[in-house]
C-alpha cells in the first residue's frame, strides 16, 4: 500500500529532502517543485506533500497523511494524537528563555510577562517553576518585544544566537532541545505497518542512532 508523507516547508525542508535522498528515495520531484502540490517518489511507493509545520500535525492526526516530518518545537506546542517514532537528529536548535542584560525573567519575583510565538511551551516552562506568568502571543520578531518594554523576557527558538545578540538579549535558560521528528497517524500504523516501519527504519539507519538505541 502506498503511503503519503507530509513534509514541513521552510527550515526543515531541504534537510529532510537530502536525508530522504541519502536513504535511497526518489526525491527529484521535491527538488524541482514547479506548481505541483503533491510529489510522487520516483523509486518507492510514496507520495509527498509540503505543508506548514502546524498543518503537518493536523494532516497526520486526521489520517490524510500517514507520516509527517515536523520539528519538536511544533509538537511541543500543540497536538498529541499521533505516534512520535523517530528523532531525525537534524534541524537541531533549542527553546530558550532570553531577556535584557542584567534582567533575568527567572530571577524576577512576582508577576512576569513573557512574549512568545509558543504560548503553551512558555506557560508550561514557567508553571513548572511555580512562577506567576502572563503570556503575550507575538507572531514575528519576538526579540523586539523586551527591547520595547512589552514584556520581561521571551521564549523562542535559538539556532545560532546571532539575532538575540544583535538585539542585546541574553540567554538565561534552555527550555528544551529541538530537532526534526517523524510522526505517524495511529490508524495508519495499524493498517500499513510494514510500509511505515520500512520508511522509519530507512531513515533511522541514516540518522546513525539505530545502534546506540538498541
Amino acid at each position, binding site marked *: 500500500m502506498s503511503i503519503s508523507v507530509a513534509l514541513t516547508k521552510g527550515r526543515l525542508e531541504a534537510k529532510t529532502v537530502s536525508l530522504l535522498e541519502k536513504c535511497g528515495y526518489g526525491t527529484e520531484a521535491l527538488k524541482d517543485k514547479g506548481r505541483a502540490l503533491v510529489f510522487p517518489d520516483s523509486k518507492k511507493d510514496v507520495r509527498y506533500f509540503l505543508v506548514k509545520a502546524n498543518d503537518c500535525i*493536523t494532516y497526520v*492526526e*486526521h*489520517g*490524510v497523511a500517514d507520516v509527517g516530518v515536523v520539528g519538536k518545537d511544533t509538537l511541543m506546542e*500543540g*497536538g*498529541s*494524537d*499521533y*505516534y*512520535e*517514532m*523517530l*528523532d531525525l537528529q537534524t534541524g537541531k536548535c533549542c527553546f530558550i528563555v532570553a531577556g535584557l542584560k542584567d534582567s533575568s525573567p527567572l530571577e524576577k519575583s512576582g508577576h512576569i510577562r513573557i512574549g512568545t510565538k509558543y504560548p503553551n511551551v512558555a506557560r508550561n516552562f514557567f508553571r513548572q517553576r511555580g512562577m506567576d506568568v502572563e503570556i503575550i502571543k507575538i507572531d514575528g520578531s519576538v526579540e523586539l518585544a523586551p527591547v520595547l518594554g512589552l514584556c520581561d523576557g521571551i521564549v523562542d527558538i535559538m539556532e545560532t544566537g546571532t539575532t538575540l545578540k544583535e538585539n542585546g538579549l541574553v540567554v538565561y535558560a534552555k527550555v528544551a532541545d529541538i530537532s526534526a*521528528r517523524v510522526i*505517524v*497517524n*495511529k*490508524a*495508519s*500504523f*495499524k*493498517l500499513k*505497518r*510494514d510500509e511505515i*516501519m520500512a520508511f522509519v527504519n530507512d531513515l533511522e539507519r541514516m540518522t546513525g542512532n539505530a545502534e546506540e*538505541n*538498541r
Partner: protein
Amino acid sequence: MENVEMPVGMRDLFPADTRKKAAFKKRIRNVFAAYGYQEIETPLIEFYSTYRDAFASIREEEMYKFVDESGKILALRTDMTLPIARVCASKILDMELPFRFAYCSDVYKVRQSFAGKRNEVTDCGVELIGLDASADCEVLGCALDVLEAVGLPSYTLEIGNSDFFRLACSEAGLDRKDSLFLADLTDRKAMPELREWLSEKITDRKVREFFAMVPLMNGRDALNEAMRYSFSDALRHEVSYLSGLRDTLCEAGYPDHIAFDFGKLPYLDYYTGIIFEGYVEGVGTGILSGGRYDRLLAKFGRDLPACGFGVKLDYLVEVLPDEKRKIRKLYYPKDKTAEALKKARELRQETAVEMIPWDQEDMEVRE
C-alpha cells in the same frame, strides 16, 4: 440574514447522513441483541463528582460542566460505561448476574478548538458485568461480529494486554508514578523520549531493551517479539494468554482479523487485563474501543468484574457510502385528496411515497 452560529464541535446531520447512521445503528444493535444484550438508557447529566471519584486521571477540561439548583456541579456524560457501572453498583442489587447491557447514546467531550473534531458523538456499545477474564473471548467475538456487520472490506481488531505491562513494571521495580509515565510514552510511541528516559532510569540491559521494544510489539510478529524480549516466565505467560485468545476465537470460526499490540496502554489506571481497538480503512482513528475494567464497580461499592466496548458511529458515517432510498412521488389534484391519500397508502405497502398537490386533473405516480 443574521448569521446564527453553533457551539464549537457541534453538527447538524442531514438526511444523507442520518440515513447512514440509522442503518449502521441497526446492524450493530442486531449483533448486540443476538448476544443477549439488552438496551439501557441513562440520563445525559451526571454529577461531576461521580466521574471524579471513579477516574483517577480525569481530564476536567474535557467535560461540559454546569451547576444545579443546590450548587452541585453537574456534567454531561463523557461515556456510557460509568453511568452503567453506577446503575449496576447501586440499583439492581437483586437481579441475577451477569448483567448484559447495551446502549446507543450521545456522549460529550470538549475538544481542542479548530481541530475538526466532534464534541458530540453517538456511542453504541455493550457492558458485560459480573464475569471475569474467562468471558474475554465472548466479548472479543462480539466485537469481531460488530466490525463484520459494519460491512467494510478491511478491518482489524487489535488486542493488547495491560497486565503484561503492569507486571513488567512491577518486576522492574518501578513505582506507580514511573509506571504511569512510562505507559503514556509507550502508548504514544514517543520513541525518542522513551529511549532517553529508559537510559536514565533503568540499568538492567535486558529490562531496558524490553521496554524500548514494547511500543513496537505489534503487527504480524507481535507475539514472537513479545516472547523474545520478555524477561520472566510470568511475562511469557501473559503473552501466551493473548495468543490463546486468538486460537480460541479462530477455532470457534470467527474471521481472523485479529492483531496484537502490547504497546497499547491507554489509561493504565483504569483498564485491567485486555484492551482492544477496532480499525477500518479510511478512518484516521479507532472506531471501536474497549477493555476489561475489573476495578471500576468497586469504586461505587460493589466489587464486580466487567468488560465492554463501544463503537463511535459518527466516524463511520463519514466513510461509508450512502444507501439511497427510493421514494416515489404521487402528484394529485387538490380536490381529490381523499382518493390520493388512499392510493398513497396502498403504494406505501411497497415503497415510500411522497404526496405533491398540483393543478392538473389527473393523478400520476412518478419514480
